[in-house]
């Protein structure tokens, strides 16, 4: 099970990758394995304001449907339209081609992206998946 060290995570199994003030978001390999084959991803529209910890989409798999939570506050700048044709990218490459949406987040005093303080490190997220069995 891959949990890339450079990413941040949420307890709801999203990952976040930040470049400048743009955060890319997807779901973790652990989440994709638990959900099983993803058949449909409903994403927020470009321009939508999203709030950290609030649902902003849905991930539909063969067995279940789950809310997709935004890990950050900001405005959606891009969504992965490839998932429309091939939602299985979420299972195949959850951290790469299976990314879901990008959000422009506010800047802090240093000009860095202002991220919620409760995002998890890779080690913390790994701990969480282990305790979930």
């Amino acid at each position, binding site marked *: 099970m891959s949990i890339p060290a450079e990413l941040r995570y949420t307890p709801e199994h999203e990952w976040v990758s930040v470049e400048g003030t743009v955060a890319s978001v997807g779901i973790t390999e652990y989440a994709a394995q638990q959900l099983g084959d993803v*058949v*449909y991803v409903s994403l927020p529209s470009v321009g939508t304001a999203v709030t950290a910890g609030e649902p902003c989409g849905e991930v539909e798999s063969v*067995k279940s449907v789950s809310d997709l939570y935004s890990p950050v506050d900001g405005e959606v700048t891009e969504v992965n339209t490839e998932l429309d044709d091939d939602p299985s990218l979420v299972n195949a490459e959850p951290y790469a081609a299976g990314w879901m949406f990008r959000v422009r987040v506010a800047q802090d005093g240093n000009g860095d992206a202002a991220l919620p303080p409760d995002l998890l490190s890779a080690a913390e997220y790994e701990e969480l998946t282990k305790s979930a069995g």
Partner: protein
Amino acid sequence: MHERLGAVITSFAGWQMPLRYGSETAEHQAVRRAAGLFDLSHMGEILVSGPGAGGALDYGLTGFLSGLRPGRARYTMICAPDGGVLDDLVVYRRGEQEFLVIANAANTPVVFDELRSRAAGFDAVVADATDDYALIAIQGPAAAGILGGLTDLDLGAMKYYAGAFGSVAGAPAWVARTGYTGEDGFEVFGRPADAVGIWDALASAGASAGLVPAGLAARDTLRLEAGMPLYGNELGPDLTPFEAGLGRVVKFDKPGDFVGRSALEARSLAGPSRALVGLTLQSRRVARHGYPVFADGIQAGAVTSGAPSPTLGHPIAMAYLTAGTDARDAVLTVGIRGEAVPAQLTDLPFYSRSR
């Protein structure tokens, strides 16, 4: 063993069962096109034996089991006195005086207790043999070829819903041509100590033919496409077999009384209170268990099972609609988290294998 294969394990009725090994869609397709291997050891096995075994089952179940020939199987149900379904069952007659009753895992204690009390007064012994059997199913068009090379039984001569004692990979087993996938296939009831050997022999013999291990997730989409009911979804104590469209399992013409007879006769005459229907959605969102179904905008029932159909490429569902709903002419929709998604009435099963 399953964890060695990378399975995602789920807790089911107190058992740790493989939900999927890799992609449940690929497992589903393998069963439709080649073969899948399932561990179904959670299923309950109840042995009913003795000179009065057939009579006890005729009284205890809806079917006419004493009329079953040795070596044959029957799909049947056990009902409460009020006609409600306690479980759906497959019964094998393994000998003149021996029947093997297969119950759903969660219902096995209830079925065992009921059969034991219903058999009182018959010259029959009812024993819970669940721990004496491991159940491995091999399902799909390639199943007969794969299993055929590992058994002394003549599978070509074994009819659908028949079974025989034989050996599989050198171990003794009861082998039956039954299943829950809508494909040809076999179920192998062996000793638990032999299970890994049987599994490994089938897996390696079948690998070149495309056999893959398959989990409960694929089993659920396979049975849904085949229009087969699942206890807890399409069947339950608040429903009689008639609601599920399975009134044919109730044998009113068998001799003697049976538990639930008078209630079931009344229900048969009055007609079912609900009707099980098939629905097809041209949507990417999936109708799932519990979602409301509307006819011309008015709630008429609820979805009992739903999934994206791997074979058909769109979502399918089974749903109960209140008796009297004019499903043929009404505009049907499913409420999917607040959105009314159009649904088409579809004859069950959604999928039938070509013979």
